[in-house]
């Protein structure tokens, strides 16, 4: 069960975003900014998850397709797509990346005990928020080799 922000100690505070049919949770401490979808300049020959490069505070950042990243089935056309700018990679070599999501919903607290480990590198596990399954992203592992 997700907790209200600031009500419990040791809980994970995460930004809930929509990615296709899935809900994903991005740890708040890794989020830098939630913006309207940034204009993306695609890179030729890039991986399918990499939509391209966007400009944030004067610097180019890679923008990843969150749906492809979590392998979510595509949902309806989002009315207000957003780009979540967050730190990715290990703390010693973190980089700003943009995550292209359908919408940013809210910030919730997730008890670590509710997180069920998942078998992939990009996810810490899955939890239940408001009765719906939420996939908790592991952004530190995103930039690991």
């Amino acid at each position, binding site marked *: 069960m997700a907790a209200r*922000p*600031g009500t419990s100690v040791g809980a994970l*505070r995460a*930004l809930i975003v929509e990615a296709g049919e899935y809900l994903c949770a991005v740890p*708040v*401490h890794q*989020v*830098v*900014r*939630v*913006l*309207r979808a940034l204009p993306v300049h695609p890179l030729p020959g890039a991986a399918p998850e990499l939509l391209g490069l966007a400009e944030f505070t004067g610097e180019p950042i890679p923008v990843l397709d969150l749906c492809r990243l979590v392998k979510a089935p595509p949902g309806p056309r989002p009315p*207000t797509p*957003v780009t979540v700018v967050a730190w990715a990679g290990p703390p010693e070599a973190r980089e700003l990346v943009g995550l292209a999501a359908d919408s*940013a919903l*809210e*910030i919730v607290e997730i008890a670590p005990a509710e997180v069920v480990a998942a078998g992939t590198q990009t996810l810490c596990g899955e939890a239940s928020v408001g009765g719906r399954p939420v996939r908790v992203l592991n952004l530190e592992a995103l930039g690991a080799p």
Partner: protein
Amino acid sequence: MLRGSDALPGSPLTGLLLMIGFGLLGSVGLAVGLSHGTPSWVFYTVLPIGVALLVLYVVLVFLPHTAQHRALVEATEAAQRLEERLGDTSAHIQAGDLVATLALAERLPPRLAVSFANAARSLGALVQQIQNSSIEVAVAGNAVNATASELASGSSEQAAGVVEITATMEELARTAAQIAANAASQAELALHAEQTGDTGAAAVEDALHGVEEVQKRISGIASRADTLGARSKEIYRVLDLITEIAQETHLLSLNATIEAVAAGEHGRRFSVVADEVRRLAQRSQESVASVRSLLDEFAGSIRATVVATEEGGKEAGHVLERAQSAAAAIAELRGALADTARAAREISFATQQQRTASDQVVLTLKEVSQVIQRMAEGLKHFSGTAERLNQLALSIQMLTQSFRLDSSRSLKNLGERWADEVALRAGHWEALGSQIEETVRHSPFVELVYVADMNGNVVVSAANPEWVGSDSQSSAVTAGVNAKDRPWFQAVLRDGRTVITPLYESLLTGERCFTVASPVRQAGGPVIGVLGIDVNLRSWTKI
């Protein structure tokens, strides 16, 4: 007839015998007297006186009387011969044989011969004239009869035709009456329809005005709906703007929360504010969504209203067009109904006149029919009169044929002549048959000619091919026929003259005919047979 004994009651021979008787009686008396003493002078006186008287009687009475008697006998014989000739002549006249009368008249004394000949010729001329006249009368009667029959037939057909025309005219009159009634009813209906058309035209006119007003109202509604639609779009733009602001506020609250989290304990209060802002933004979005939903419904209603008003406007336009067409049609219909009513009145009037005329024609035709029927009856009576006239002429013709004239139209004379020719070939039947056939072929009024011997057996015959056909055998017609019991055969043998039978129906043709039967004499002497000629009446009267 005066006889000699009647003219001279005492004949000379009787007187002489009386004288001789008286002389003998005187002589006997004288002798008796002398024997009884009578004186002799008496004897010698009486005797010479007696002789002298006897001589005187012979000379003065007997001889002249004997000469007169002889002359009287001769005259009597001559008178008897004359009587016989006169009898024969009269008998021929009585029998109507004027040819024989003329022949016998030549044997009469000249004055009588001339008188008889003149009388016979006059009678013959009269009979011939009567015969010719009767033939003409018969022909005229036939013609009148045929014409009258034709006219009567024509009159009957005409009467029947008039009856049919009368029935047709009556039917026409009834039809005209029915048409007149129908036309009057039609005129009344047309008038009513015209009035109804006027009412309908007024109603359509009102409907036109109403539809035009409705169309104007619909146009006004459509205009207002367009205005509302435009305002709705403005509201949508405002809502979009509010939505966008709410989203931005939402993102801003999220970022504020993120920053508050990053600030740690210092950002806790800020986090609460950010959360409130996020909620406010969320409520704003919900309110916008609610307003948008209401506005969608409102816009949908407006669009439906616009569509409805457009359709209503189009329908009103169509209704207006149809109403205008209906008004034009009703106006045209009113004109047509007025024309129909007028035409129906004219038809009614005309058919009433036609009915009156038809009734008059029917009356006239009935009168004509009666006249024709009377005329037909008169013609039938006329035809009957003509038929009787024809029969009368035929009877006269048959009466005139009882005379034998020296004429080709005298059948008795014809029979006698043919009988003489037959007599020349009596016994040579084959040659006679050919001759008769040739004769018959040139006599179209003859059906059959035959010759019977004294026993009544028909020995030769010839039928006219014109009546029995060319293939028929003449002998077959009279084969096995015996005329011995026939009245004409018996009459010819009895009287020795040509006879003509009454009319009877021919066994050969089924038509009326009569037979001319003439005696066949051997060299003008005894009768050796009878010649029969069957004459067709219709053909004979035509001749």
